[in-house]
């Protein structure tokens, strides 16, 4: 019994020592730690002055405090810099600096429409994606049925079954996720609706008697926040074809658009050979076929480049070329094209000498671009293009619009000398993009992405709202901006 007691005592003392040691270690650690907490209505920050730069950096980054000027502890101006940023120095010792700052109220916060803006989310989960203009490549993968039929650029969406439902809608990026339009028509074996679509990537769902469901026949689906899915449909704009090879067992398509993945795109057998429909945005691509393991360049395509293995890759260019031309300059050594389409690179797009000057064919996506020519180091605007605007350096850039989809109109102002448009589409360029006077009105065709756009006209230096558009909203100067929404299908 005594032995047991002695053992217990022993254990007790050992544990006590362990606890004391642990406590000491923890309290030392506590002392060493930086703190970011709430106190007295504001931020309260304690920073240890005996720590490594890396440890301080990691604390400041973690709490998003990197603008705090506390790294140079012993610099006398450190406290001034903190004070200038609104911080109060509560204490400054050899070991620690303690600072605090009251949190201010957001102006107009109590208006209910403003509480909507209070969010700590930089990127909200995408439950209902918006129309995408970024997609480069895509293809459809359906289970137990072929791709949706496409006729005259109308896609026949089909929902199998659900024939007892009272009402079925299709809702997606093509109808702004409408919950009232997109009413599908009942057939014997399901529901159909033809929707006119331009090539591109679309997200959609069905609404069956008011319940959202994704398309179970479509393997292309993207998860949203709640482990549900949005179905994805690619409206294709190109079909790769390989004739013959009727006896081949497996034919794959591969190329730069799938990072040369050899097992991803299995071609479909047809009467004539093999094919594979895809969506490809404008650009230049290289590709090849893999017929039962053997590489085959596209026999129908004369455009090819070396594959660096003694063979060739086929080349496909999508989109229309625009040929930039500069007349004259026969004695120039080098003429370079540079613009917003290539981030103003100065050595990338070398123009080629032609009979009467220099030229370069180039494929661009729809958009509004600014550009210049660099002739032996001298930047010049395009002399053949009268559409110019001012840049940040107060010199001029030439403007080109590829595939305009909207035209600004301003009636009258016949006597005006210079009428331009400024808006979010040209980052509110102070000079604006120049309009032309045609048929008694000023016009400017531009390319606008889908969504909301704000703009104003500048008539001989005076900024005015669009008198032909009754939609406008106020701006930070209290003078208003005209508003348009671009819907695209």
């Amino acid at each position, binding site marked *: 019994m005594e032995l047991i007691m002695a053992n217990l005592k022993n254990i007790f003392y050992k544990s006590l020592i362990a606890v004391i040691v642990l406590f000491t270690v923890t309290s030392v650690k506590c002392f060493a730690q930086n703190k970011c907490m709430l106190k007295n*209505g504001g*931020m309260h920050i304690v920073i240890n002055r005996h720590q490594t730069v890396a440890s301080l950096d990691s604390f400041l980054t973690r709490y998003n405090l990197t603008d705090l000027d506390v790294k140079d502890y012993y610099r006398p101006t450190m406290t001034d810099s903190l004070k200038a940023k609104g911080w109060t120095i509560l204490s400054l010792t050899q070991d620690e600096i303690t600072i605090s700052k009251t949190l201010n*109220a*957001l102006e107009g916060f109590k208006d*209910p429409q403003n509480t*909507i803006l*209070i969010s700590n989310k930089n990127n909200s989960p995408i439950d209902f994606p918006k129309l995408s203009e970024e997609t480069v490549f895509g293809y459809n993968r359906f289970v137990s049925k072929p791709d949706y039929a496409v006729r005259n650029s109308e896609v026949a969406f089909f929902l199998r079954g659900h024939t007892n439902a009272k009402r079925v809608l299709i809702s997606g990026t093509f109808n702004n996720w409408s919950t009232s339009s997109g009413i599908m028509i009942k057939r014997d074996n399901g529901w159909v609706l033809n929707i006119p679509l331009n090539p591109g990537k679309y997200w959609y769902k069905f609404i069956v008697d008011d319940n959202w469901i994704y398309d179970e026949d479509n393997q292309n689906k993207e998860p949203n926040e709640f482990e549900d899915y949005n179905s994805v449909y690619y409206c294709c704009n190109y079909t790769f074809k390989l004739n013959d090879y009727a006896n081949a067992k497996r034919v794959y398509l591969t190329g730069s658009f799938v990072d040369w993945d050899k097992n991803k795109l299995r071609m479909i057998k047809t009467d004539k050979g093999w094919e594979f429909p895809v969506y490809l945005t404008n650009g230049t691509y290289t590709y090849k076929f893999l017929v039962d393991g053997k590489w085959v360049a596209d026999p129908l395509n004369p455009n090819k480049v070396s594959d660096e293995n003694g063979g060739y890759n086929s080349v496909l260019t999508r989109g229309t070329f625009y040929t930039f031309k500069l007349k004259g300059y026969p004695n120039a050594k080098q003429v370079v094209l540079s613009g917003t389409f290539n981030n103003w690179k100065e050595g990338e797009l070398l123009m080629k000498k032609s009979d009467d000057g220099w030229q370069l064919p180039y494929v661009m996506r729809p958009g509004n671009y600014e550009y210049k020519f660099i002739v032996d180091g001298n930047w010049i605007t395009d002399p053949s293009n009268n559409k110019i605007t001012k840049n940040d350096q107060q010199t001029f850039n030439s403007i080109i619009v590829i595939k305009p989809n909207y035209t600004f109109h301003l009636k009258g102002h016949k006597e005006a000398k210079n009428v331009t448009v400024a808006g979010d589409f040209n980052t509110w360029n102070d000079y604006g993009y120049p309009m032309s006077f045609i048929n008694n009105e000023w016009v400017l065709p531009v390319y606008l992405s889908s969504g909301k756009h704000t703009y104003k006209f500048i008539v001989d230096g005076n900024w005015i709202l669009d008198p032909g558009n009754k939609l406008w909203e106020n701006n930070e100067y209290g003078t208003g901006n005209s*508003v348009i*929404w671009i819907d695209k299908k």
Partner: protein
Amino acid sequence: MLTWGVFHHASGDAVFPIVPIPQQTEFEQDPIPAGDTLICTIPFKKAGNLILIEGDADNQKGSFILDTGAPRLVLNLTYFRDVKARSQTAAGGISGGIANIMQTTVQNFKVGNYKYKNIDADVVSLGHIEDHIGVKVLGLIGVNMLKSFTVMIDYKSNLIKIKLLKRKDKFCFRKMLLKDTASYQTMQIRLYYNKLIVAGLMSGKKLNFIIDTGAESNVIDSRLPDAVLEKINVTGRILLSGSSYKKVEALNGNAEGLSLSGIPINNLPVIVTNLKDMCFAFDFCIDGMLGFDFLSLHIVEINFANREMYLWN
């Protein structure tokens, strides 16, 4: 500011430095919806975690945000600039951003199966919300439009179900869908100045939380006593921006030891910011907001008639 009239804020360091001006009476009457009392299911879409439902205000059809943080119908000035103004309330000064709020009467408003006639609405610019979520917004559907309903919000299925309740109608979706009392929780709610309030308790301090489907994040007041603030584990600093072009600093954190209507809520993610403008009467201030980050964890039923909220999973 929109319903409860105009306030002047006394300066000083008082915790809630508010001197009220008597509430305007012109909006006392709540809109009465017409329609049958069958259950109406409205599929909604989300943009930036806000609930967008399709409505029709005097033949302009489009998306409205279901916003229980708004006291009543709000129309976006951009699309309703030409409406007949009832009056203009001067509301400048404190919030700065808006000089005048136009008020109008909407003759016909439709949402789901329900129709409203001659309802009052504020007309303000919602352009900054459109820019924030990238969607065209015709307006906000606020609390007084919903007072005769029980409303079930299922964020996961993107559906709301609403049912018009008659007097003494005991219907609720919770009863229809859930028999097992263990699978749901009931919170008592109050309606005060057309705000949906649930009583909270943290470190012994009573707190008023507003239930706000128009808020993405939960919010708590930075001016609460240290005993409350100590219970918030700060995770970092953020910048908030409102409709004006200035930004303010705020903190992200997780609140511990909070109970709402007696129900313990663990580890609630919150933004801590100064809510000094969130007082709606001299004795009544909002201490916090419960938004998407709280509501979306559950299926939520707000029974405006019984003044109860049910949460289930």
